[in-house]
């Protein structure tokens, strides 16, 4: 084999593997990406039942209803729209009314959001970046949050 042939094999192999990687990625991007939506986005964009999304907003005051066997219902609001959410399992340590929350799941036929994951990525002085942005967009951002988020201490989150 000449030097040139060997080099061609090497380059061909490299491009081949890279091609496989790209194909795998494109394929995975088609069906494993989850979009973040605020309740208003869900209403305005008519997100259909069964589409997997992340729903973010505030847990509406007075909306938490606990049922049997760790089932819980609450509403997620961004001030403009509200979406009822149902979840079964142990809630994150800092899940509270009036606090930011991100739920992952899909709407069912009855317009209720069936969440299989409730994200715990916040503490009492911090809220998920997506939720903060969504609240700012809908005009329900309170300066209070900004102050708390700007405080040097509680920027850690969970």
């Amino acid at each position, binding site marked *: 084999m*000449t030097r040139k042939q060997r080099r061609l094999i090497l380059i061909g192999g490299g491009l081949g593997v890279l091609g496989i990687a790209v194909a795998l990625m494109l394929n995975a991007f088609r069906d494993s990406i989850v979009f973040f939506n605020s309740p208003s986005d869900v209403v305005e964009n008519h997100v259909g039942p069964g589409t997997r999304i*992340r729903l973010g907003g505030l847990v509406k005051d007075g909306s938490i209803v606990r049922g049997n*066997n*760790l089932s819980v219902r609450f509403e997620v609001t961004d001030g403009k729209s509200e979406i009822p959410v149902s979840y079964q399992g*142990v809630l994150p340590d800092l899940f509270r009314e009036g606090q930011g929350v991100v739920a992952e799941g899909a709407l069912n036929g009855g317009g209720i959001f069936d969440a299989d994951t409730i994200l715990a990525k916040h503490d009492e002085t911090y809220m998920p970046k997506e939720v903060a*942005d969504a609240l700012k967009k809908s005009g329900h951002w309170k300066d209070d949050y900004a102050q708390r*988020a700007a405080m040097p*201490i509680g920027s850690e989150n969970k």
Partner: protein
Amino acid sequence: MIPEIGHYALMLALGLALIQGTMPLIGARTNDPVLMSMAVPTTLAHFAFVAIAFGALAVSYVTSDFSVLNVFENSNSAMPFIYRLTSIWGNHEGSMMLWVAILAVSGASVAAFGTNLPATLKAYALAVQAWIAAAFYLFILVTSNPFVRIADAPIEGQDLNPILQDPGLAFHPPMLYLGYVGFSIVFSFAIAALMEGHIDAAWARWVRPWILGAWMCLTLGIAGGSYWAYYELGWGGFWFWDPVENASLMPWLAGTALLHSAVVMEKRSALKVWTILLAILTFSLSLIGTFLVRSGVLTSVHAFATDPTRGIFILAILIVFIGGALALYAWRAPLLKQGGLFAPISREGALVFNNLFLTSACATVFVGTLYPLALESLTGDKISVGPPFFNSTFGPLFIPLMLMMPLGPLLGWKRGDLLGAAQRLLAAAMIAAVAIAAAFALEHGGPVLAPFGVGIAIFVMAGAVTDIAERTMILRVPFGAALRRAIGLPRSAWGTAFAHFGIGVTLLGIVGATAWGSERILEVKPGGTIDLAHYRLTFDGVFNRPGPNYHDMVGHFTVRRAGGGMIGTMEPTRRTFPARNESTTEAALMTRGASQLYLSLGDPGPDGSVAVRVYYKPFVLMIWLGAAVMFFGGGLSLSDRRLRIGAPRPARSRNAAAQAVQPAE
């Protein structure tokens, strides 16, 4: 007074780093030995001042000097001594101090121990190292000064984030940083080689200990972080494909590729240009990891601070170093002479295969991690790329790698015998086939692919054993002779076998814990029982227990075998920290062989019941045990005679040596 000394020492270190970054560089370009020789003393002095700065911060923490803002925000006098010490790097400013401290230690050890390095290479490498250090000192001094004072010193500190009050903090960040920073030395040597326009097998031998050491620390750091997340976050998961985890995985993948390509360069003087590129990419990924984690673009446990000026500063560092290095590479790499031809089927070919798949796997992680950030800044759409993406891209790329791994060491250099190697692996393949059959027979209701996962893991392990068996000829010569051969084997051969074996162990753990684990999430009342796998847990009740700076709500559970015999008790805990009004979940773990029972406590109900999560994780400990075996293998390789003694001087003149490695066409 002490914090001011630290602050001042850091400024002096910056000044010294600037001298270290310019004078030896000019010296190397003008061939001035006096200027070049300035590299060593400035490096050592600059290390001394960084040590003083870090020591000053450490003293402030240990003595709980709350007049220092950083100490006030992250420490508390009620914390045990070890956490007062580790909370130095449990925050943004302090962790950057740890970063530069380790950087200075590495630079100083090159200066002190690299006595056999050519003067120009050493001068260039230390100068590059100084530029990296200077950039980070500037970053700390301008945006993240840990020595800022408060006018009216508070009496008590605000405590460390409870999640970080854990022995894991003493171990995970320093190991990870040792890995990142170790690759910075390799990077500096790569840039130095590009500036010289010359590189040879000796270069690979000098940087190999650094690659190995960094890779070992990174391996252990990632595994440690994974175990920490496993027991601390209360979800029983060991890997979440979280962007910050990916940030440490990417340098590991690129570093593993670099480790293998450096072997080719050292032994066969081939793949020079590629090795240099990998060295640049590996450290670039370490920098990107630091950027992702520290700039606050990602929200996670690790995002200590979200100050936009810091993000922009780190972004500037990234652009200058990565962009600069790649530009230099594009300009100077053609100067490097190609050497060492090899057939596609050969040891070199197998290592190229390894490199292709590792870098492609690294690229998929890179895209999956950064795509959401790119999309959000371009279109404003917010997406999350979760485990399904990585499982369906990373997984398929890793399987061929695993299948080829036992084959590589059995192939000869230059021209390998694929059929012969495959024949020698027949026993390993048969053991794997038996394992697959056994897994099918024993499992009840796992995924169909899981037994094949077990098969691959066993194949990898048996392949590593085959490699050693072949080298010692254990079944073909008398045992005594085989033993003598085993003792005579280079330690790097043992290291390879152990590291490869460790990969198999980890894989077995991952397959076992994900495919055959079981979990239950439920509410139990005192006296109630939970049945899981072949265990029965009885909930005895909840009691309170005070701690130094927290108080615990402890659940008491008795564990029995399904048949009846009592095994032990488990005490999962919810720990509340009054200083921050935060609580954490302390899971209870019961180890049974390599498997674990995992119990974590949720919210208490009004009627004395509690919500609990119970997991049974078969083979889960093998995940981290495998990493420890990999670390051990790396250590064996690091202690190899040829690295310990250092690069030998070529006996022949350079020209003769260069001719000798030119193979006949």
